[in-house]
């Protein structure tokens, strides 16, 4: 192969693919088969991190950045004057295999601009995956993008070779979609999603009866929403995310702060700051919903349509619900422990185990790794009365902010001041 030519293509097509933030390579059940290459049963590994601090675990490329559509938020849109390139199927296969053998990656994340038609494009993506599986005996991770509007037949075939499939909903509201992606209909996104969801259900049911049922998208499907492109509220985003988790059994919803790529009056101007702190708050909310037993309406509702920027959503909820505190760490149920600000699930687990042996004091909690500078306003433990009972929410917030160096406080103080 001509390395010079490949290098050029790789630069163009990796650059165009990087706005898709998903880089998960976990959740598959595909083991090494017949002493072939690769194994995807593990947790998924980040082999390196980009300079923006994101995990690199997959070779993330577009097959081509030619596109017949003109979605306003996308670098690849037809009207954008950029260099175009396309990998041959074999080139994508060779790159994947050679990177994988050197332990650079966990596998391939293949997406594409839409050329000719959705089906024509999807067919090519499937062809790469099929070649990797059947000709190269490759058992690494494959994430294929479901092309909006692709047929059910192709989506079925895609799931036979891919570990994960995803369609990016990109714009969280239907009105926003009309405005920014006039070529696409809402159903173009949901149809392949629905097909994949149903096939996964069928696969799981059949698997119980026939062990040898060929695996179908074992790592499930995911989607991504762009944040801050259309003036949507956090409530819009998280209600929409909850909808996709519930109705399409999404494994993950990703939130991607909009990186301005176009001079377009419908969108934030080029050079506007990427809303990274907001993105971070949305991920925190997503965690609270998925692992901490919070309901979306508790965190976001008509009275609070947007997340606090200066404190995380759990603290924010606690400050609004002081009547539920203090919580006694020595007796409270796990689900209540999980609601104490400064207590992660890890600490909850450790507390539950350690308190079987003795009444826990501040010292014990410190050793366990509880962030006491926040937690102390919301809990009691052995040898300590609740010393903060007379404080108002606003005072507690002030005290916590004073003493904590939030992850983003320094880096983004300019952004923070916008909201204060």
């Amino acid at each position, binding site marked *: 192969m001509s390395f010079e030519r490949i290098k050029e293509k790789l630069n163009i097509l990796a650059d165009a693919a990087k706005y898709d933030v998903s880089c998960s390579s976990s959740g598959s059940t595909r083991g090494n088969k017949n002493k072939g290459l690769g194994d995807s049963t593990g947790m998924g590994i980040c082999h390196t991190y980009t300079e923006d601090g994101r995990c690199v675990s997959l070779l*993330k490329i577009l097959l081509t950045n030619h596109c017949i559509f003109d979605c306003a938020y996308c670098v690849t849109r037809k009207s954008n004057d950029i260099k175009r390139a396309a990998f041959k199927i074999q080139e994508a296969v060779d790159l994947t295999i050679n990177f994988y053998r050197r332990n650079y990656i966990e596998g391939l994340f293949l997406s594409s601009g839409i050329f000719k038609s959705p089906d024509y494009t999807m067919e090519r993506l499937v062809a790469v995956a099929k070649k990797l599986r059947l000709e190269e005996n490759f058992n690494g991770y494959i994430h294929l993008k479901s092309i909006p509007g692709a047929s059910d037949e192709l989506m079925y075939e895609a799931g036979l070779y891919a570990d994960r499939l995803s369609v990016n909903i990109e714009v969280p509201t239907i009105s926003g979609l009309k405005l920014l992606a006039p070529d696409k209909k809402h159903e173009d996104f949901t149809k392949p999603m629905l097909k994949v969801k149903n096939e996964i259900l069928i696969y799981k049911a059949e698997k119980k009866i026939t062990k040898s049922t060929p695996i179908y998208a074992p790592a499930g499907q995911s989607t991504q929403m762009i944040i801050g492109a259309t003036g949507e509220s956090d409530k819009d985003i998280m209600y929409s995310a909850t909808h996709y988790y519930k109705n399409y059994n999404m494994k993950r919803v990703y939130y991607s702060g909009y990186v301005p790529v176009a001079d377009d009056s419908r969108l934030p101007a080029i050079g506007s700051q990427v809303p990274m702190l907001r993105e971070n708050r949305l991920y925190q909310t997503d965690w609270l919903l998925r692992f901490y037993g919070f309901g979306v309406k508790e965190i976001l509702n008509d009275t609070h349509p947007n997340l606090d920027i200066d404190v995380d959503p759990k603290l924010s909820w606690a400050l609004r619900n002081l009547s539920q505190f203090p919580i006694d760490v020595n007796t409270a149920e796990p689900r209540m422990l999980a609601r104490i600000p400064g207590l992660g699930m890890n600490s909850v687990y450790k507390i539950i185990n350690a308190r079987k042996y003795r009444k826990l004091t501040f010292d*014990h909690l410190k050793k366990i790794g509880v962030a006491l500078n926040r937690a102390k306003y919301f809990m009691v433990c052995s040898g300590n009365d609740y010393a903060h009972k007379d404080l108002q929410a606003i005072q507690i917030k002030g005290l916590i902010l004073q003493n904590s160096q939030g992850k983003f406080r320094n880096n983004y103080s300019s952004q923070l001041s916008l909201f204060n």
Partner: protein
Amino acid sequence: MNEAKILVYDGSFNGYLTAVFQAFEQKLIIADIQKEESAQSGLFSDAKLVYTDVLKSKRVWNGIQKKNNTAIKNIYFAFLSETKGIELLLYRYIQKLFSETELLHLNFSDDIVLKISQLAKSVGREKHRMEAFVRFQLTKDAIYFSNIEPDFDVLPLISKHFKSRYADQQWIIYDVKRKYGIYYNLDAVEFITLDMDGIHSNKTKKSNVFTDEEYEFQDLWNNYFKSTNIASRVNLKLHTQHVPKRYWKYLSEKKAVS
């Protein structure tokens, strides 16, 4: 007779477990357990040489495992941390383990338990790092070769991972610091030592042991690494937190080949 003893073992985990076996069996009072190479007997105690006996060490291993599966993992991992004084600490831990009826490894309010679980965690983290940061380079005799220099002795822990992943290629992972490696010969993994004569030591200069294509692929990977970065999101602090500088020399995307 009742004086505290120092047990001296050969440095291997089996050797260590044999020492533990002896301590229990002979009801010794233990002042310390030390590696042969670093042993210095204390003023008031007898030093006693332990001869590694795999059968005895197996019995200790099984005994602990039967008692508590997580504990045996913690013990092995913490041992590989090579922390000074780890032997005695682990000995106290094992004593506790056998004297308590509850699930000791979960009692995080106990200092020794906490310390062991923290050490085990650090070793576990290093294991994961190595699984991530190994970068194979293809030699002309078709072996994928990688150097590492881990903080802890993790080769025994990562061998399984690489074996099940790279089942159809020969590979070597070499620990430059501890001067031994693991070699997968398409069938099984064996321990090896090499005469490292510079060529393999991951200098940034090209070496003619590796194929020409090897450098092309490294170059492609470096390009990919740059292209996939989003400049408007740069956060170097986070970057170095994830990829600590001491590992950079082994990562082709972080070193410039000349």
